C-alpha cells in the first residue's frame, strides 16, 4: 500500500534578526491510510513547525520552507500555487490545533463555520452544507447537534470546542489530519474522550493522522509509529512498541526515564521514593546549535566524535532508525 502522506527532506528556516534559525532540518516520514504517526519532542524541537510546514502555514517571511517535498496521494504540496494549496487545505489535508478558541472564529456560529468549509470544497448548496454540519457535529458526539450548530464558540466548553474543531477538520473527509497537541489544553477525562473520538473517526474515514505531542502517554496510547525530534532534527523513528521497549537514542531514553508514572495502581514496579532520572541542562537555541550532535552537551555517552560531527539518521535495527554515534 502506498502511503497517503510522504514527507521527505523537509527543511524549514526562519530569517530572524538574531540570525538564521533552522527550525526543521531534513525531516522525512510517511503515514499510511488509517495510521497514526506521532511526532514527539519538547518545546522548540520543531514539531509544530513541521506540522505547519505540512499545511504550508509557515508565515513567509520570516519563515521559509527551503527544501523537501510533502506528497499527499502523490501530489507535492510544496509545488502547488497558493490558490491550489488553498483547495487542498481542508479537503485533502486538515489541521486541528491545541487551543480551539483561537482557531475558531468567535463571531460565527459553529454550524456556519463547518458549512462554509463544505460549501467551499465540495461546492455543496447552503442547505446541504448546513445538514452536513449538523451531521458532523452528531458524528463527533456533540449532544443536540442541531441546537449546538447555532451556538458560538464561547458558548461551548473546551472539550466541546475541540469536538467542533474536529468536526470542521473532518467535514470534507481529508486524507490527512494533522493534530497539533489536540488535547494538551484539556482535562484528563476530556482528553481521553477526545483521543477515543479521533481514533474512532480515523478508523471510519481511513484518515492518516500526524499527531504532534509532548506527552509520551498519549503517544503510547494512540500512535502506531513514532518520530522523536530534538533541536529541529529527527533523532529516532520506530514502531511505537519498539520505541518504548528499547529506545536507542539517549534522548528518548532519557525522556522515558524522566517521567513519573501512574504505576502502582496497575501493579507496576514503581518504588515511591525513587529519584526521577534527569536530563541535565536544557534545549539549545536553534540559532546557536553545537557543531556536532545537538544533544551531545546533555548526553552522558557523548565523546569527541559526538561533539564534532552530526550523526547520520540511519537504520540501526529492523525498522528502527536513530541518529546517534553511540547506538
Amino acid at each position, binding site marked *: 500500500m502506498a502511503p497517503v502522506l510522504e514527507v521527505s527532506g523537509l527543511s524549514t528556516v526562519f530569517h530572524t534578526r538574531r540570525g538564521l534559525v533552522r527550525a526543521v532540518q531534513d525531516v522525512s516520514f510517511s503515514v499510511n491510510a488509517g495510521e497514526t504517526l506521532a511526532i514527539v519532542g519538547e518545546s522548540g524541537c520543531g514539531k509544530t513547525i513541521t506540522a505547519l510546514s505540512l499545511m504550508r502555514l509557515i508565515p513567509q517571511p520570516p519563515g521559509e520552507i527551503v527544501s523537501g517535498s510533502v506528497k499527499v496521494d502523490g501530489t507535492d504540496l510544496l509545488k502547488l500555487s497558493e490558490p491550489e494549496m488553498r483547495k487542498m487545505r481542508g479537503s485533502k489535508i486538515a489541521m486541528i490545533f491545541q487551543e480551539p478558541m483561537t482557531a475558531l472564529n468567535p463571531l460565527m456560529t459553529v454550524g456556519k463555520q463547518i458549512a462554509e468549509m463544505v460549501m467551499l470544497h465540495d461546492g455543496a448548496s447552503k442547505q446541504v452544507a448546513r445538514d452536513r454540519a449538523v451531521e458532523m457535529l452528531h458524528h463527533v458526539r456533540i449532544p443536540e447537534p442541531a441546537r449546538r450548530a447555532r451556538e458560538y464558540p464561547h458558548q461551548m466548553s473546551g472539550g466541546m470546542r475541540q469536538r467542533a474543531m474536529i468536526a470542521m477538520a473532518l467535514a470534507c473527509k481529508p486524507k490527512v489530519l494533522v493534530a497539533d497537541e489536540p488535547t494538551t489544553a484539556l482535562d*484528563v*477525562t476530556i482528553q481521553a474522550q477526545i483521543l477515543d473520538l479521533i481514533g474512532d473517526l480515523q478508523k471510519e474515514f481511513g484518515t492518516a493522522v500526524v499527531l504532534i505531542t509532548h506527552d509520551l502517554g498519549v503517544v*503510547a496510547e494512540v500512535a502506531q509509529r513514532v518520530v522523536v525530534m530534538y533541536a529541529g532534527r529527527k533523532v529516532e523513528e520506530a514502531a511505537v512498541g519498539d520505541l518504548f521497549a528499547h529506545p536507542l537514542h539517549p534522548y528518548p531514553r532519557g525522556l522515558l526515564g524522566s*517521567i513519573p508514572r501512574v504505576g502502582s*495502581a*496497575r501493579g507496576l514496579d514503581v518504588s515511591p*521514593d525513587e529519584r526521577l532520572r534527569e536530563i541535565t541542562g536544557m534545549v539549545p537555541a536553534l540559532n546557536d546549535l553545537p557543531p556536532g550532535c545537538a544533544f551531545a552537551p546533555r548526553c552522558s555517552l557523548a565523546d569527541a566524535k559526538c561533539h564534532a560531527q552530526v550523526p547520520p539518521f540511519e537504520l540501526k535495527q529492523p525498522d528502527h532508525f536513530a541518529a546517534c554515534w553511540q547506538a
Partner: protein
Amino acid sequence: MEQTPLVEVSGLRKFFPIRKGLLRRTVGNVRAVDGVSFSINAGETLGLVGESGCGKSTVGRTVLRLIEPSAGSIKINGNDITAVGKQDLRALRRQMQIVFQDPFSSLNPRIKAGEIVGEPLKVHGVGDRGEREAKVADLFRLVGLRPAQMNNYPHQFSGGQRQRVSIARALALDPGFIVADEPVSALDVSIQAQVINLLMDLQRDRKLSYLFISHNLAVVEHISHRVAVMYLGRIVEYADKTALFAKPLHPYTEALLAAVPLPDPALKRTKHRVEGDVPSPINPPSGCHFHPRCPYAEARCRVEAPVLRDVGVGRQVACHLR
C-alpha cells in the same frame, strides 16, 4: 505517625460572589471551595488533584490567606491564621510560602533575580545588606543556580531556571510549609524531572511540608505521601498515596486514573470512560456533584450529598456506594 500536624485546615469555604448591575448586587455565588478539611505533617507532601475548575488552586491561595476564606479555620504551627490581624499575618507569612505554575508571570520582569529572591528577607528586615546578599547567593546555589546569575533579569532565564528562582524566593525565609501550585505543569518533560527532584531533595534536607497542587496524577503519585482528590469544590477522596493509586474508591478517582494515558504501549487499557464535561461550580448538580457523570449513580446520589467519611485507617471517601 502520632504527631501534631504542621498544617490543619478544617471546613474551608470560599465563595466568590457574582455581581451584576449598576449597584453590583450579589446575584449568586461561585462555590469554588465548599467545606474542605485536611492536615499535613512536618516533612510530608499532600497532593491535591482534580480537573480545572475543581477549586484546587483556590484552596492553595486561601490556605495562605492570599484570598480571604469565607469560612473555616487554617492552623499553621498551631496558630489560626484566619483569626489574626493583618500585622500578625505578615509576621506569620515567614512560615508559609508559595510557588506558582507559570514561570513567566511569577517573576516581575523589571527586577533582577537576586533582588527577587532577596525581597522576602528585606521585607522582614533579615540581616543587613551584605548578609542578605550572602544569603541570596546561598539560596541560588541551593536551587542549582550560579550566584553570578543574581544580576540577570527573569527573561534571561529558561523556564526551568525561572522555576528555580521562584523556589529560592519561597525558601528565603526558611518556611516550614510551601504551597506548590502546579509547579511543573508549564515545563518540558525533561525539565520537570529536574524540578521535581529539587523539590524532593529540599523536602528531605529541610523537613518541608508541601501542599502539592496538580492535575498530573503521575507527578502527584511520585511526589506525595497522601493525596486528596477534589471535584467541584469538595474533597471526594482522601487517602494514603499507595492505597489510593492501588485501589481508588470514589468513582471519580477511578475515572481519573483510567483516563491517564500510560507511557507504555504494551498495556492495553480497558476503555472505561466517564462521559460529559465538568459542570459549572456556579450551579453544581444536586446531591453528589459527580452523579451526572457517574456510571454507578443511584436515585439517592441525585438528592443527597455524600459526606466524607472514614473507610479504614487514614482513608476517607465521599460516596454513598463505597
